[in-house]
Each structure stands twice: as structure tokens, then as C-alpha cells.
């Protein structure tokens, strides 16, 4: 485990759905401002793990502590109030609400006085959203939706970002745009857990990485363990194909 004061501590987290053990005894800690990439095949439990940390699915066993407080029994909205944000995949925008309303929903917990500034910050990061702010989110393209979802998290000025495959199915161009937005606004300021397939995209952000298989962590490494994204891909390849 990397040194320093861990502000997110997860111990022996286990999630069982009916007969399926989706996440099995996962322990993970992250320091303030650290980005941890979570790799794993589909169905390896990444999404369930992030949702359990966010409080969106109940943990069967284990403990989640954030900033020294045990939040295991808190519901999702109370964890959100403590600065956690779960960034879902792009299908989860409210299509019948406008872009602006989607952002406003993201700023639900933010004092009204800070809303204008937060909104302008997102619009300056993603000018495409500014120009479509009055349109229903249903007309956005996939890339724009992902920008909206990220923007919806950024307006709330989160301190812990749980990102679930944010670059899935995006063109390289959109992905780079999102990456630079994360780098300029959050990198080093917020703790980020990033579940990804795309090793290349994730490599730009990560400080550490873990690999999930069958709901457990099978490998942990730091950025310095791999020289570049290509090497990371090779590493993942080894773990995905036993």
C-alpha cells in the first residue's frame, strides 16, 4: 500500500447478489488527490465495486471509510453530501431534461451562490454543452452525453470521483477532451477511482492501478511499474487471459 494519509479506506468489501458474489473481500485505500485505475474484464465486479463505494448497492460485508468517517451504512445521497460523486456510463443522462437542468441536478447540494460559477466553469471546459444548454439532453451525441455526465459531477466540486468506464465507446478525440478536462480540474485535487477498459486513456490519469478478476483484486501496481500505455496493455492482457 502506498504511504501517506489514505482518505478513502475500503476494507474487505463484499457484495452478493442472490447467488452471485460480485465483489469478494476487496480492500483498497487511496490518498488525497490520488488516481487509482481499476482494470478488469466485463463482469469482474468493477462496476459493482464502485457502486458499493458510492452507496448505490448495499455492501454485504466490509467497511468503507471516507475522511476518517465510516460511511458503510450511509445511503448514497449522504455519501454524495460528503463529496463523493459516481460518474456513470453515458446512457444515464436524463434525456427529457435540458442540458442545463441536468447540470443543475448535479449541483443539487451546492449552495445556490456557487452555482453560477460552477456552471460557467463546466461550460468553459465543454463549450459544446454551453451552446446546447437549452436543448433536451436526449438530442446529445454519445460524446456530448459523456461530457454532460462528467460536467454534472464537476459542478458539485467533488472530492472523490468514482468513474465507471467514462471513455467506453468514445472516439479518441472526445476521450482526449474529457481527459484534459479531468486533468485541469481534478487531478491532484480530488481522489479518483477510475474503472476502465481503455488502458491507453487511463494511463494518462493513473497513479496506481489494480486489476479485478472474479470480484477480487489479483494485481496491484504503481505508475512506475509500467513504462507506458503499451506496457500496461500487455500487462492487462496477461491478466485477462489466464
Amino acid at each position, binding site marked *: 500500500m502506498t504511504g501517506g494519509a489514505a482518505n478513502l479506506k475500503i476494507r474487505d468489501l463484499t457484495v452478493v447478489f*442472490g*447467488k*452471485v458474489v460480485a465483489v469478494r473481500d476487496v480492500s483498497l485505500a487511496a490518498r488525497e488527490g490520488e488516481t487509482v485505475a481499476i482494470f478488469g*474484464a*466485463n*463482469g*469482474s465486479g468493477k462496476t459493482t465495486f464502485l457502486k458499493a463505494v458510492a452507496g448505490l448497492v448495499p455492501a454485504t460485508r466490509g467497511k468503507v471509510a471516507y475522511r476518517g468517517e465510516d460511511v458503510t451504512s450511509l445511503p448514497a445521497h449522504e455519501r454524495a453530501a460528503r463529496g463523493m460523486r459516481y460518474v456513470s456510463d453515458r446512457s444515464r443522462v436524463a434525456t427529457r431534461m435540458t442540458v442545463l437542468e441536468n447540470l443543475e441536478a448535479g449541483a443539487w447540494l451546492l449552495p445556490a451562490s456557487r452555482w453560477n460559477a460552477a456552471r460557467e466553469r463546466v461550460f468553459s471546459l465543454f463549450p459544446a454543452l454551453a451552446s446546447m444548454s437549452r436543448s433536451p439532453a436526449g*438530442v*446529445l*451525441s*454519445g*460524446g456530448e452525453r459523456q461530457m454532460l455526465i462528467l460536467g454534472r459531477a464537476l459542478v458539485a466540486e467533488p472530492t472523490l470521483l468514482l468513474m465507471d*468506464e467514462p471513455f*467506453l*465507446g*468514445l*472516439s479518441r478525440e472526445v476521450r482526449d477532451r474529457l481527459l484534459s478536462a479531468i486533468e485541469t480540474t481534478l487531478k491532484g485535487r480530488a481522489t479518483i477511482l477510475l474503472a476502465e*477498459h481503455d488502458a491507453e486513456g487511463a494511463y494518462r490519469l493513473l497513479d496506481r492501478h489494480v486489476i479485478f478478476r472474479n470480484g477480487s483484486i489479483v494485481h496491484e501496481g504503481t505508475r512506475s511499474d509500467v513504462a507506458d500505455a503499451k506496457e500496461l496493455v500487455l500487462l492487462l*492482457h496477461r491478466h*485477462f*487471459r489466464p
Partner: protein
Amino acid sequence: MTALLSAEGITKSFGATRVIEGIALSIAPGEPVGLFGPNGSGKTTLVNILSGLLFPDAGTVRFEGKEITRLPIDARYRLGVARTFQIPHPYPALSVHEALRVALAADPGNRSAGEGARGDEEGAIEDLLSRTGLFNQRLVPCALLSQGCLRRLEFARAFACRPKLLILDEVFSALSALDEKELLDLLLAANRDDGTAFLLVSHNPPLLKSLCRRILVLEEGRIVRERRV
């Protein structure tokens, strides 16, 4: 050689937005074709029209020379046009075995054969189960299946009608490498051994290049390029 599936002048609007406009394409028997396009380019709408889930505002779709423009999806399946969904919608309370029985029951050849065909049906199901690697899961209710298994079930369901044309909507996205490889092999084997043509929709160019002989590129509701590999 006559085209297996051909479409001409396909146009579709939702309300005021025109999603696809004047698309023409044709697929030869046994031909592997790719369809590439960014999100929102109308890929899914086109697939829905070709598979019979939606009907176009204008244009015609033909299959083996017969017009099927307004033939619903279930009738097209019985003709041999099968499709898979990007997000599987399983029957929660049915087992894998039962889900495949449903697909086989719809096969006219199977149905008219009557009770005598029960053994054949079992044989066909076992064949599908072993080809897709679902044999061990055959009694599990679909609601308890993992994503990878659901995707395999989609394949098994599509193969149940012994399709002449498979329309595959983003089947390889978000899959583990193992799942992906097995399903790819399955698809290629069907193409090689049974001469099954397929239209593979994906936003993964390397994948398309490795599988398809021809790739159609869709942008803003039109086919803007056609690349031969």
C-alpha cells in the same frame, strides 16, 4: 450473384429530426460486412430498420429478392434474418434452455415436424448450448446470468434459426477478452462453415478490419464511404 439483403432509399425521421436519409446497401450471401459510425450517426436506427423492429418512412428492403420492408422482426427471423441487441433483454423467469426452446419453436421447420421433432429440438438446443459455451448454465434462470453469459445467449438465440444473415449490434463491446475471443471464433466458424452472412455494427475499426471484407461508414444518417479490406 444476387444480393442476400438489399436496401434502397431508406429514410427515417423521429419527429422533426431526420435520423437516416436515403441509405442504400446490399449484402451478398455469406458476406461479412461491417458498419462503422460514431455515436448518433443512426447506426442503431438502420439496424432496427434492417431487422424489422422499425419500419422506414421511405425506401425498400429486400431479402433474397423478396420485398420485406414492412415485415415485422419475428417474420424476418423465421426467414433467416436474426439480430442481437446491444443491451440484452433476457426473459427473467426462463432458463437458458427454455429461452432457446422459444427461439426454436418459432422455426417453421421445427414446428411443423410435430412431436417427432422433440428429439431434434433437444439436439439442436444441446448443439447451441455447447457452441456458445452455455451448457453448464442451461438450467439457470436468465435473471441470474452474468453479462457475458447473456451475450452468449444472444448469440445462441440468433443461431437458433440457422440464419442466413446475422445482424450484430455492438456485440463485442464491453466483453472480457475470453468472451470476446470465443464469440468471434463462433461467428467466424458460422461464416466459414454455414456461409452465414453478417452485418457487424461496431465503433472499433481494428475489429471490423479483422472480420469484415467490406466496411460501410455511416455519418449523420448517410453512408459516406465504403472500404474494402
